[in-house]
């Protein structure tokens, strides 16, 4: 029998949640291994925040079960082991950032020596060390940074973050992602987001939530490989991208060709490379080469591109609609 120490960081079984007649979670079954950075993806309203609220015992599941680090959500055993930052953290407006962290430390009954060391560290880490203002005057980004700091005050075994970078500027976002990367292996990080580049950058494992259920789950690379096949993309670089683009676009129009090209886009602004989405990658590559040849262009590059997480996400979410 497995004990709390070898149990997964998060385990849910057939978790459902009804709000009246609306089904917010529809049999959510999830397993998050300890030490991993887990991306919990989903469109707005997919049920991410509802699932997190149940994990934190802020809401009750209609049916199903959940365990955190082997304990029931909200139990006295699990509370000291977790850290949580919502997307818009709420703090008493009259407090300063330092007071917020000291208050949090008091609730965790941390020794004074730890508080004296940890509070300045976290203020420095989140760029709030020089701020003397009360929290009531903070921007949303500053609140989010303070939210991250207070979530780390107890050096949690499990860090639950609900869209932690949604309000951060590029520098703050980079710092937050670096922080999450540093925690890898030491702390389990479970974070919900719809910012897919963040997930691609830091996550080991992902689950994509759609309409309250897990549409895909597993290691990030596996999910991309397994579910990215429905979209085949080719990168084509020539000396005349505009002419090629026009020719390929003609192939997307019904009646103007076979319709084997699904989409044509610039790879990057100003780039000579085009990203061509085709219905079949091998056949498509041969046809693109033929088009390039017929136009008399010089071909520099023609190769398949792996599906991105965004492709997988869009396919799954749109497929469910």
């Amino acid at each position, binding site marked *: 029998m497995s004990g709390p120490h070898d149990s997964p960081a998060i385990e849910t079984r057939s978790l459902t949640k009804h709000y009246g007649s609306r089904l917010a979670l529809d049999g959510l079954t999830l397993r998050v291994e300890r030490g991993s950075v887990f991306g919990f993806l989903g469109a707005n309203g997919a049920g991410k925040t509802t699932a997190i609220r149940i994990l934190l015992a802020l809401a009750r599941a209609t049916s199903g079960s959940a365990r955190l680090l082997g304990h029931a959500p909200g139990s006295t055993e699990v509370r000291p082991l977790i850290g*949580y930052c919502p997307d818009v953290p*709420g*703090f*008493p407006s009259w*407090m300063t950032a330092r007071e917020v962290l000291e208050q949090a430390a008091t609730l*965790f009954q941390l020794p004074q020596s730890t508080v004296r060391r940890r509070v300045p560290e976290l203020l420095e880490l989140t760029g709030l060390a020089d701020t003397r203002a009360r929290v009531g005057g903070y921007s949303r980004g500053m609140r989010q940074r303070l*939210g991250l700091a207070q979530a780390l005050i107890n050096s949690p075994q499990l860090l639950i973050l609900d869209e932690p970078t949604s309000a951060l500027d590029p520098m703050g976002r980079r710092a937050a992602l670096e922080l999450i990367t540093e925690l890898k292996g030491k702390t389990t990080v479970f974070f919900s987001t719809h910012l897919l580049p963040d997930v691609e950058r830091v996550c080991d494992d992902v689950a994509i939530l759609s309409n309250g259920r897990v549409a895909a789950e597993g290691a990030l690379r596996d999910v991309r490989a397994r579910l990215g096949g429905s979209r085949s993309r080719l990168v084509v670089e020539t000396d005349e991208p505009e002419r090629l683009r026009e020719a390929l676009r003609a192939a997307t129009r019904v009646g103007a060709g076979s319709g084997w090209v699904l989409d044509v886009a610039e790879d990057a602004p100003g780039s000579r490379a085009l990203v061509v989405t085709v219905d079949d990658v091998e056949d498509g590559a041969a046809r693109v080469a033929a088009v390039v040849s017929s136009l008399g262009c010089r071909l520099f590059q023609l190769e398949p591109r792996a599906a991105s997480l965004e492709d997988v996400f869009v396919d799954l979410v749109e497929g469910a609609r």
Partner: protein
Amino acid sequence: MNAMLPLLRLRAREVVRTWRVWVLPVVLVFLAASGPVIARFTNEILAGALGGGELTALALPEPTAADAAARWITDLSQLAVFVVVIMAAGAINTEVRSGVASLLLVKPASRSAYVVSHAVVLVGFVAVAAFVGALVSWGVTRVVFGGAGGDGVGASNLGAMLGATGLWVVLAMVLITVSLLASATFDAMAAAAGVGVGAFFLLAVAGAAPRLAEFTPAGLLPAAVAVASGTPTEGFATWWPVGTGLGASLVLVVVAVAVFRRRELR
């Protein structure tokens, strides 16, 4: 109850660091200081407004220190009650709406301690402010009336003044716990405040019914006025309203805890 002491400290600091520390004490001290003056010069004020002849026709009695003391309790039961109800009505639901409550309660702090800490600090704060107000009112009464009008009257007696204020504090305790229960139940502060104010009017109306006034918290206000003015009602035992008031407050806190423990937070 987990984290009771840290939560009590948090609430106490909140009172000291926000508008709460000013609003209620300022209101109470203003009422305490102005009440005896208004009581002392009521006849002169009326004479100025109505003219001497009309006032003579009214045949108003000479004001006494007892009038000032009764006025203090009446003042407490008007504006001060609304301030107290509004403070309690927004205590829980405001923090739930802003996300402060959820961030506290995912940490090792129980929902029971969360509700009880609100109740304890609010009652304590209101009690301290009311007793300070009573002392101010007593001091101003002595200055304004001097020895006149106070002989043999309970209201000029500091003990009676504090006793009457104590009875009002028990009434405030009932209203605070009603409002806290409403705050734990309803998202809207206005709805919770409506419940608190409604409870006050209900108690005020019920206080006019002899049996209810004798045995329930509805008797706290009449008892406080009677003690302050030195005219205790014959056969009226204040310990019944006090006992049932304290008991009702306790029950209301327990119910508020039960409601809040079941509540889903954002």
